[in-house]
């Protein structure tokens, strides 16, 4: 118990310092988590979090819910909801996520629009409301920001993606002013066969961290997939399994952070 408390206070300290800078903070989806968050080219309902431009890959209205419990500390859980609606050639995404607990939480609401620029290239823009709530200590802060992604298939089965979060470097205003750095992710993915997807990406805020991620997904059976991923800095390994039943998909993921330990992730998505 003592250990958890120490861990928790350490983590909160860390988080309050680099609040919005923490790597893959705004990513969501258990499939992404299982692939080490190397998900810039994942064309699923979670694209709204991982790369809004990839929403163009969806052909039906889809929705998903996600929950994760970082390092098995209940105060550090996060939950997310995603809805994607194909509109003509493009798609609209509506995304909500919440991290934290009653005494400290961070919330994000995003509305994204993705559109094709060419038959191999698409672009997505998302408007974000970001808010942090600390009722006892510092009060509330919030901003409006945006993020932009591009997604391309320059060769068959080969994908490229880039995503910039908060490109204008808009800070957090309110009871406490805080800088929110610009974070950028660039990655590639390749479908080795209809069953096997491998992707790698780099993420940086050009200041406090640069991280490398790699992930792989293998559709072992028609309805059953296995995923794995690794991150360098912080060093982390992740695994997951997915089961698909008609339009319903259940993802279970587990990740291990070298210093902070274990985190479970779960996600359910449904395509109408």
């Amino acid at each position: 118990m003592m250990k958890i408390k120490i861990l928790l206070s350490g983590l909160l300290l860390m988080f309050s310092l680099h609040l919005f800078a923490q790597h893959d903070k705004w990513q969501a989806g258990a499939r992404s988590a299982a692939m080490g968050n190397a998900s810039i080219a994942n064309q699923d309902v979670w694209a709204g979090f991982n790369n809004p431009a990839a929403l163009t890959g969806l052909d039906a209205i889809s929705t998903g819910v996600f929950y994760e419990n970082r390092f098995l500390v209940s105060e550090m859980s996060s939950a997310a909801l995603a809805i994607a609606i194909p509109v003509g050639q493009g798609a609209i995404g509506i995304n909500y996520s919440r991290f934290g607990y009653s005494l400290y939480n961070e919330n994000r609401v995003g509305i994204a629009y993705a559109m094709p620029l060419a038959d191999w290239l698409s672009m997505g823009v998302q408007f974000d409301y970001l808010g942090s709530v600390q009722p006892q200590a510092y009060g509330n802060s919030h901003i409006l920001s945006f993020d932009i992604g591009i997604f391309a298939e320059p060769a068959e089965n080969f994908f490229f993606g880039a995503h910039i979060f908060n490109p204008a470097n808009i800070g957090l205003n309110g009871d406490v002013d805080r800088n929110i750095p610009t974070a950028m992710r660039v990655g590639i993915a390749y479908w080795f066969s209809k069953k096997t997807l491998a992707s790698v990406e780099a993420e940086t805020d050009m200041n406090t961290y640069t991280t490398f991620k790699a992930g792989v997904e293998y559709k072992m059976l028609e309805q059953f997939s296995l995923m794995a991923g690794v991150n360098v800095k912080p060093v982390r390994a992740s695994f997951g399994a997915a089961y698909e039943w008609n339009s319903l998909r259940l993802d279970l993921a587990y990740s291990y952070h070298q210093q902070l330990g274990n985190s479970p992730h779960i996600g359910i998505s449904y395509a109408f």
Partner: protein
Amino acid sequence: MHFKLYYIIIAAFLLVSVRGLSQDIPGSDTGLDNVIESIAEQLDAELDYTDLVERLYELSANPINLNEATEDDLQSLLFLTEFQVFNLIKYRDEVGQIYSFYELQYIYGFDEEVSRLIMPFVTLEAKSESTENWKNMFKYGRNDLFLRWERVLEEQQGYIPIADSILEEDPDKSRLLGSPDKLYVRYKFYYKDKLSIGLTAEKDPGEQFFQGAQKYGFDYYSGHFQLRDVGRFKTINLGDYSVQFGQGLVAWSSMSFGKTPYVMDVARKARGINRYTSTNENQFFRGAATTVDLGNFEASAFFSYKPIDANIDQTDTLDAIQTVSSFQNVGYHRTPSEIADRNSIQEIIAGGNVKYSYKNLRLGSTFAWYNYDVDLMLPDQPYRLFDFQGSSFYNAGLDFRWQVQKLGLFGEMAINDAGYPALVAGATASIAPQMAMSVVYRDVSPGYYAGYASAFGENSSIGNEKGFFIGTDVSLFPGWKFRGYFDMFVFPWIAYQANAPSDGFDWFAQVDYQLSRSVSMFWRFKGQEKDDAYTPEGAYFGVMLPEKSFKARYSIDIKADKQWRLKSQLEYNGFTPKPDDPVEHGYLLSQDLIWDVPDMPLRFASRFAVFKTDTYNARIYAYEYDVLYAFSIPAYYYQGKRMYLLMKYSPLDQLDIWFRIARTYYNNRDVVSSGLTEIDAPHKTDVKLQIRYKF
């Protein structure tokens, strides 16, 4: 240092080319080079790879008939993955007989490279009755004799005679008692793979010969007798032998290695009991052992009794308790103190293994019990808290391997007498036609100790490690291949020179490109971050800070024609001792030239290399060609140049003669090495002569 020799075979076989074997200059193919270099880098040591090379030669002399081979035979080829073995058997069952090597590359999981690689070790004869006959033993039995001499030409400090007056005062003054010559003799009589009798003897530089502590001549003698496949006995071994079972947590006495460029070869394929012919003076068993075949079951038992080296601090004669400050495992007995440690403890090992096989499933159970003739009391330093104390202990473990279609699973869990557990488990899978992956998880408790054991991991010794490895092997385009791995590890308890729990990770990426039949090249990158103790000036306690290294290598190999081969290598090593320190750089550029003299049984291999490294930390290891059964992987450091010439001359079919001379010049040093081997000159020269006679 740990030695689990056979595992190297698995990896080495992967890239051993036909040409590489038909040439007798060992390691003159890039695959073997790669593995050995990679190992040497990891262990920082020149190891004895005799068993590996020997096994390669043996296999090429007694190839396995693919049309008759059982699964175990194919596994013993070792360089085929279990997935490939599985598919090969499946294919053979479908078609009845394999007629051509060209068929192989169409078997799922095979490619042109693999089928080319196994060619020297397999045949495709029709099924036949066994032709082995003990009557033929003396007719077809073969003798093989090796004699080797080597020496450093420059005078080394330890050999300079010391005045008697000084020795009177301090008779144990550190000095090298013997001559700087190294001598090696090996004799073997063998009949196919049925019978093998052999003797290996070695005198290291500085050891005496027929004098002092070595009054019987050589410092080290090793003999073996091995009989294979007699009735129900799979093997009967007397004398020196090695033991490999499971995944190495309980019993694995020969050399092995974990992380290599061969990322799919993470599962250990234990070879059970095998004769020992190497010159490592510690990592073997001496006594008797056997394996009995009982249908689906196989039972092995081993017993070993031999003296080992240890540094005994004090002896309490009343309680017969001895404090052992350290076990010595370098095998040198050159100085008065090394000689004092020699054979100071008697060690008894007894144990066994039971293996059950059913289709593609293997289950095993291994037990090993150790006993020493003294009570071992290690000094009570905190990092040794979990070390073994007392006079006897045991380990027991359960292991499995299972190939399910494209998925291979393996693992072992073990426990020692103190109740501490250890686990190694992993999987390999072919997840797309061009892509395969491997994962290994290990969790070995700080309290887990084992005598002759070595499992997959970052540390060379067993215990106190938790980690996760993931690797992949991808055929990108025709001619292009990518391999890479990422490994993270945690040492939950403190260790020698690590005053806090620590962790780290390393990664590896390599792209191979086969430009044409005669030109191949690769780019290799390796990086590591690992905690290391750092004590700030004036501070009493140190802290753990990550030290970083990054290595990059480009290598190109040109086999221009049957006479000439060129190999160039450019390597960089960047080392950062702790965060914010300046990077220490190291560079090496080398050019190899190999010449087969036409119409003459004569061959030359040579190198010229220049190197510049800021520090010893930024040193670079580079593989060098050497006489058969000897290996050189020297570290290049500081600034200078190095060259060597190796010559092999075979005047008769039965006779081979090798001569090698190597010299390093240092530009910015006046002395080479330190301590007893210090040379008061800016250069060092090694010469080596070897004769092999087969009759």
